[in-house]
């Protein structure tokens, strides 16, 4: 059977034009997808049942047993942490928030290690953004700053920017100017019209210099800023000012390098400055398929997009204090529930080490590095493969993920609803 218009749940692009051929509960072919999409659908290896760590190794347990024990761990905890959420659908995320509120937990999503700084910057100065459709149809200047879409978002350029034919830019490759800012050469810099190579940690200074040049203060700027010649900065400022419509996309090279949210704030203020001359927008290149959705769901329900602390019954938010990495590094939390993410693979060592010290439960379709740190792993459906649900694209557009096959696993929303019921002793959310 061939399913049309399937949404790939892997990255924030949520490409919705895939063609998936299935044979019963098996996916046999993926068409239109990038290599990441193909691996997502084809290499879907899962645990057959929940497992629990014992003195002698791992043992298989029933779903009922796993759910009861998880509820018990969370009930006993004085500072539980619920983390992850970005690779599953919004329905699961909302139940996670309900559980956090019920037990006085801290709930955080993967923004904390990716675009959390972007959110902090947006909270300071706003977000002059737009949908990817606008960029595709209008943008004649594209800036990729601190990101490598050719490898991390392989279809971003072909669907929305460099190679995409737009309504007002019919000959995309000829009409669009692509500027790439990075600390080293990548596959993306190879197709840039202008490559700006900056020194590590020099983003803030370069952005400040560009803002000053656009404001007419070029005389203040020294001959070189963070390894970039003043002539190149002046040339880029001119390209941007003369654009009909410009779009800046940025990645972790900006958000997770020295200065973090101040870098993003500076980029937003450059966008603001350029919009005094022409139309400019800026957007983060989001990583996990539904990380934007986790920010949306958390914000609707708590008022805050990530790092929400319910310890006192009300939502409190203060990244640096209530973020998962910081709570783990300080050894604060005494139990953790990890859903649809892999902090064991990408958290700092001290934070990951604390996960191994406390009772940690993982609810994830796949075995990952966090499994090795956990006490219980409960396998479930994978959103967009064998579970339907809502996800948000990197530009804030909600897209319905399809269920392509049925592999007989319970939905993570169903597992969490049962945990909620065990904790509450009544009806779930």
């Amino acid at each position, binding site marked *: 059977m061939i399913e049309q218009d399937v949404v790939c749940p892997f990255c924030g692009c949520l490409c919705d034009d895939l063609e998936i051929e299935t044979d019963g509960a098996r996916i046999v072919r993926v068409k239109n997808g990038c290599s990441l999409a193909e691996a997502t659908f084809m290499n879907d290896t899962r645990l057959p049942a929940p497992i629990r760590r014992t003195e002698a190794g791992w043992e298989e347990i029933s779903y009922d047993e796993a759910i009861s024990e998880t509820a018990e761990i969370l009930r006993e*905890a*004085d*500072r*539980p942490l619920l983390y992850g959420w970005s690779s599953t659908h919004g329905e699961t995320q909302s139940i996670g928030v309900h559980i956090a509120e019920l*037990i*006085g*937990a801290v709930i955080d999503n993967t923004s904390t290690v990716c675009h959390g700084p972007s959110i*902090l910057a947006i*909270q*300071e100065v706003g977000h002059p953004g737009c949908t990817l459709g606008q960029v595709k149809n209008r943008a004649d200047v594209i800036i990729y700053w601190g990101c490598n879409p050719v490898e991390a978002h392989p279809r971003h350029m072909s669907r929305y920017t460099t190679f995409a034919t737009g309504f007002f830019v019919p000959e995309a490759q000829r009409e669009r100017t692509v500027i790439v800012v990075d600390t080293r050469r990548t596959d993306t810099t190879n197709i840039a019209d202008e490559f700006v190579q900056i020194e590590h940690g020099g983003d*803030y*200074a370069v952005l*400040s*210099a560009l*803002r*000053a040049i656009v*404001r007419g*203060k070029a005389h*203040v*700027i*020294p001959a070189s*800023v963070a390894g970039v010649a003043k002539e190149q900065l002046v040339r880029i400022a001119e390209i941007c000012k003369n654009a009909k419509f410009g779009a800046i996309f940025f990645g972790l090279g900006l958000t997770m390098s*020295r*200065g973090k949210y*101040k870098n993003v*704030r*500076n980029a937003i*203020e450059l966008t603001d400055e350029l919009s005094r001359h022409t139309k400019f927008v800026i957007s983060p290149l989001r990583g996990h398929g539904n990380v934007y959705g986790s920010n949306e769901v958390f914000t609707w329900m708590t008022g805050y997009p990530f790092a929400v602390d*319910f*310890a*006192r019954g009300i939502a409190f*938010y*203060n*990244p*640096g*204090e209530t973020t998962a990495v910081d709570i783990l590094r*300080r*050894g*604060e939390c*005494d139990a953790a529930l990890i859903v649809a993410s892999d902090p064991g693979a990408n958290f700092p060592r001290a934070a990951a080490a604390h996960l191994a010290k406390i009772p940690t439960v993982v609810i994830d379709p796949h075995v990952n590095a966090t499994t090795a740190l956990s006490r219980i792993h409960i396998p479930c459906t994978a959103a967009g493969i064998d579970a339907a649900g809502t996800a948000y694209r990197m530009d804030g557009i909600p897209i319905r993920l399809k269920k392509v096959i049925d592999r007989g696993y319970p939905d993570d929303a169903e597992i969490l609803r049962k945990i909620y019921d065990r904790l509450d002793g009544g009806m779930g959310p």
Partner: protein
Amino acid sequence: MRVILESKVRKKPSLPIEAEAIIPRNFLKGTDLVVFEGNKERTLSELFWIFVEGTAVSPENIEVVLKGDTSRIKRVGEYMDTGTILIEGDIGMHCGNFMSGGTIEIRGSADAWLGREMRGGTIVCRGNAGHYCATGYRGEKKGMQGGTVEVFGNAGDFCAEYLAGGTVHIHGHTGDFPGVEMRGGELLIEGDATRPCGNMKNGSCVILGTVHDLLPTFEKSGTHLLPERNLEMDVYTGDVANRGKGTMMVASRALRR
């Protein structure tokens, strides 16, 4: 009146305690106060040995002394308006949040957000201060607006972010971005600083040590002699990435771009 709170040994010492109830004024009515340990509500006596010496008829005559392991206790002195708090060791985050009067002395080091959105009063920290010393809450356009924060050790990153009023005096070094987004007030750093005063709009910052990575958007406007220290200072105006009406003075010998 002197109220001595000596922390008890806890089963889970890493759990944070939120103790905004610990301000001198609250002890006028007794010591029956509530704090939070993790997600559990506790009485003050569950976590501290409490000793009260003498009496007081007004809060300005009350001194609260914190002893023992107090490094995980947050929000001590929040909304404090009078009286004195003496912390003999280290103190947790948010000490002196929104403080408008009185004095807090910390003999050890303070964690992040010391004197956050302070309006008045004095905080003296004998050790080091963490990140975001004398700043504002996330997204807040004005940080500290009045009072004095003096740190005898070093301060972390983003010290005096959004400073809008009052005086911040760091005797040691600061981390990255001291005085970033400054709107007013005075910041004095006796040690070194990295990328000071980014996006500064107003106010004044004096740095006596070495400046690392001076931002390219500060315009040198002259020199100035600090008579009390007999130091010649380079005077910069900025940040010209925005309106650029702030003043940054850097000891002439110490600049490294």
